[in-house]
């Protein structure tokens, strides 16, 4: 689209006003997924498989149905018969199969039946009355074992066109890309290092469990309230799974208590709708934490081989990576994304990357913040660090020497437009953290990371009120303060104070389609749409002023919230403020609104460089992070405080992933740690303050220069921390998490 209105001087953008939902959220008034009720409401609960892999021989729900508090019981038979086809419809089938098991339970925690009862306790009790006969099947939960010839097959025929012949049926997608001649490149190198790396699956770990309140009648009309990153995808998916028309289901997004990619699909929503339809009453379902950990998320686990060749001067001559990602019992592990992102920070003549999507008896992986990228960065940046160490080179200088910049051919193919990697590296080099002395037992690590960012389908509507205030309706759930950013951008265009703009996350019945809040797209795409919608309203405001003044509309321009004559020849009129135009709008042509619907296609890729200090207790292998600095290109920070917040949150999640978070499966294929006690996300006392540096290299594809900021921040930490820990411990850590037993074993030489 035409982006002729690039702006570089701002009045509101770049300031740090209070967020509009702040008061509600500090007083407990904000309504999250589980915080609403409806008249006549029932409580739903879901029965889940205790087996990793089992044929469902028989489900007897009669005893549960006979319970006097139970109003409905559903199984797979209560859902629409979704055809199993490739593409989007195939994904619907996968989602349905995940939401309620069909012939087989595919992982520990897989839903097999559900009840609705008059109380939450009664619903939970009624689950015990459902009898399920299972025929337990052999299972596999490890990615390398799932690819082995003797691995149990999760589902025949799940592989798509891309998988080369001869691979195990659990390998369902294959990606290969690159350019140049890697063998020739390795031959040119002074040192080649090849190593194997492993990361465990981690969960997005949002504090709010999935929750919804559903109402669906026999007339096919429904209402759904839920915590989601995207209510239109919920609407579309639930309608398909329930066999109703999309437009007949109105979905409202609640306040959302974190998502990080994990709330981009449905789990309980179709079940609640099916129960509601059967009971003919509203049904609320709230997941327990163990349900969240067993049956939603997590990210993929990975097994990776990376080989890089370097000259003595630090030039990378060739790079190659094989990335095997396990994404649970369904296709979707982002092995392709891992492959495409892994070497993206570097200008490489010879590069080859291969990604595998592998199924196993684990929950269906969900997106998690730059899905696939952190694992690859961990492997690649670890090998680069090792090369630097062996060749006696400074890790930032080597990265600068090889850094991608405008005009570089990306490892994934195209030529980069204006990008900000070099700026983040220069900022890292000059940051006091990088030159600060280290204490004995401490090590420093640096790493770079890349993420694409995303545009996506977007609709925004802006309506002006008679008093000159504005209401802005966007369709991307606000997870981290985006209502504040939207209001800032609208204020910038309209020229009215930030406080005069009320931003609402509109429901599916009141706005056109919106893609999910994912891919770091909200500030980019909804922001762009907000700017366009506000400009649309400004055009109309200028028309009204032109009519009032009796001059052509092109003789009117908009300045500081007022219509003004565009030049001395246009006429001599006092500036006409927005509120004066809207005061009369009902009598001068009708309500004034602005709209924008499009799929913005100019998301700018982004890079970050992290510096981290770690201290390792040599006797116990325990690591503490003593200092952390995030440097990332935001393009343009609309609300810098929330940009910092995204950087800090990404780093904190990375610290958890690197040090302690992991999915632990037993020999029986059951998840061993489905509670926060043993799924160890970082607590306040685990972390230092996290310093941030916002680099601003404007994205040519956004009127204000915005790149996404939400995801890139989790890409460098795994590698940066691994490098810091390896430097502190004096031994290379190749497996995440770097839990104390692993570090201690490595220190003792048997790791």
């Amino acid at each position: 689209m035409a982006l002729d209105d690039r702006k570089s001087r701002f009045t509101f953008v770049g300031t740090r006003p209070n967020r509009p939902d702040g008061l509600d959220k500090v007083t407990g008034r904000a309504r999250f997924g589980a915080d609403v009720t409806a008249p006549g409401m029932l409580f739903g609960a879901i029965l889940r498989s205790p087996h990793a892999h089992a044929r469902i021989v028989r489900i007897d729900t009669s005893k549960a149905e006979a319970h006097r508090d139970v109003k409905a019981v559903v199984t797979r038979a209560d859902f629409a018969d979704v055809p199993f086809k490739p593409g989007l419809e195939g994904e619907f089938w996968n989602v349905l199969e995940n939401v309620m098991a069909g012939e087989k339970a595919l992982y520990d925690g897989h839903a097999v039946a559900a009840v609705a009862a008059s109380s939450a306790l009664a619903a939970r009790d009624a689950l015990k009355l459902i009898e399920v006969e299972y025929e337990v099947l052999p299972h596999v939960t490890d990615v390398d074992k799932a690819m082995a010839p003797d691995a149990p097959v999760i589902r025949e025929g799940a592989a798509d066109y891309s998988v080369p012949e001869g691979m195990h049926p659990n390998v369902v997608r294959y990606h290969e890309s690159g350019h140049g001649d890697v063998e020739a490149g390795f031959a040119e190198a002074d040192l080649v290092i090849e190593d194997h790396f492993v990361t465990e699956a981690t969960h997005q770990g949002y504090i709010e469990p999935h929750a919804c309140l559903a109402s669906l009648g026999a007339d096919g009309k429904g209402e759904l309230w839920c915590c989601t990153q995207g209510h239109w995808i919920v609407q579309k998916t639930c309608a398909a799974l329930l066999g109703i028309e999309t437009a007949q289901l109105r979905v409202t997004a609640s306040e959302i208590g974190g998502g990080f990619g994990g709330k981009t699909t449905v789990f309980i929503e179709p079940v609640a709708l099916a129960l509601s339809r059967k009971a003919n009453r509203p049904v609320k379902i709230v997941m327990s934490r163990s349900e969240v950990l067993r049956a939603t998320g997590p990210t993929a686990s990975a097994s990776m081989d990376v080989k890089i060749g370097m000259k003595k001067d630090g030039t990378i001559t060739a790079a190659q990576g094989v990335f095997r990602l396990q994404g649970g019992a369904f296709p979707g592990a982002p092995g392709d994304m891992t492959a495409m992102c892994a070497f993206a920070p570097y200008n490489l003549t010879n590069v080859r990357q291969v990604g595998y999507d592998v199924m196993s008896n684990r929950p269906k992986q969900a997106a998690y913040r730059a899905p696939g990228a952190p694992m690859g960065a961990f492997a690649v940046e670890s090998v680069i660090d090792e090369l630097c160490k062996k060749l006696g080179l400074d890790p930032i200088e080597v990265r600068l020497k090889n850094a991608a910049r405008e005009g570089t051919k990306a490892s994934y193919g195209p030529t980069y437009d204006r990008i900000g990697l070099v700026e983040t590296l220069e900022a890292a080099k000059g940051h006091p953290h990088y030159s600060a002395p280290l204490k004995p037992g401490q090590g420093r690590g640096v790493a770079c990371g890349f993420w694409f960012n995303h545009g996506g389908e977007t609709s925004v509507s802006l309506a002006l009120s008679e008093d000159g205030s504005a209401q802005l309706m966007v369709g991307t759930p606000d997870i981290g303060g985006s209502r504040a950013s939207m209001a800032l951008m609208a204020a910038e265009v309209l020229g009215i104070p930030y406080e005069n703009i009320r931003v609402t996350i509109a429901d599916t019945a009141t706005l056109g389609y919106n893609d999910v809040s994912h891919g770091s797209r909200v500030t980019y795409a909804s922001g762009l749409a907000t700017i366009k919608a506000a400009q649309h309203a400004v055009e109309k405001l200028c028309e009204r002023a032109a009519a009032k003044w009796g001059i052509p509309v092109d003789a009117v321009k908009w300045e500081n919230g007022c219509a003004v004559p565009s030049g001395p020849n246009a006429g001599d009129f006092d500036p006409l403020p927005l509120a004066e135009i809207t005061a009369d709008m009902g009598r001068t042509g009708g309500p004034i609104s602005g709209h924008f619907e499009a799929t913005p296609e100019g998301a700018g890729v982004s890079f970050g460089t992290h510096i981290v200090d770690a201290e390792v207790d040599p006797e116990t292998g325990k690591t503490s992070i003593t200092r952390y600095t995030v440097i990332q290109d935001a393009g343009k920070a609309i609300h810098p405080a929330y940009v910092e917040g995204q950087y800090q949150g990404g780093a904190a999640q990375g610290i958890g992933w690197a040090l302690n978070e992991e999915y632990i499966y037993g020999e029986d294929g059951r998840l061993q740690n489905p509670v926060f006690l043993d799924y160890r996300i970082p607590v306040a006392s685990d972390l230092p303050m996290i310093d941030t540096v916002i680099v601003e290299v404007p994205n040519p594809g956004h009127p204000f220069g915005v790149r996404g900021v939400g995801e890139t921040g989790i890409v460098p930490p795994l590698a940066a921390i691994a490098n810091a820990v390896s430097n502190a411990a004096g031994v290379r850590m190749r497996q995440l998490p770097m839990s104390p037993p692993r570090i201690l074993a490595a220190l003792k030489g048997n790791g």
Partner: protein
Amino acid sequence: MVEVHLWSGLRSLTGGQEVVRVQAATTGELLRELVRLHPQLQAPIDAGVSVAVNGRIIAAGLSEPIPEGAEVYLMQRLRGG
């Protein structure tokens, strides 16, 4: 004519070609032409692709213009968290 660079995993569907020349002025035409020349490319295109035109990644749009001589890469559809 534009040269479309495919990711190397697609070579098996194009008789070994990693660069395909097509006549196309928009991203939509480009995808149609690719399938016309190499019907087996229908599967990856259905599964989801993006098109990078002069470095700008078009995630889904079919009406994006492709200037003559533009650098064009077919990419796997991007997903986010």
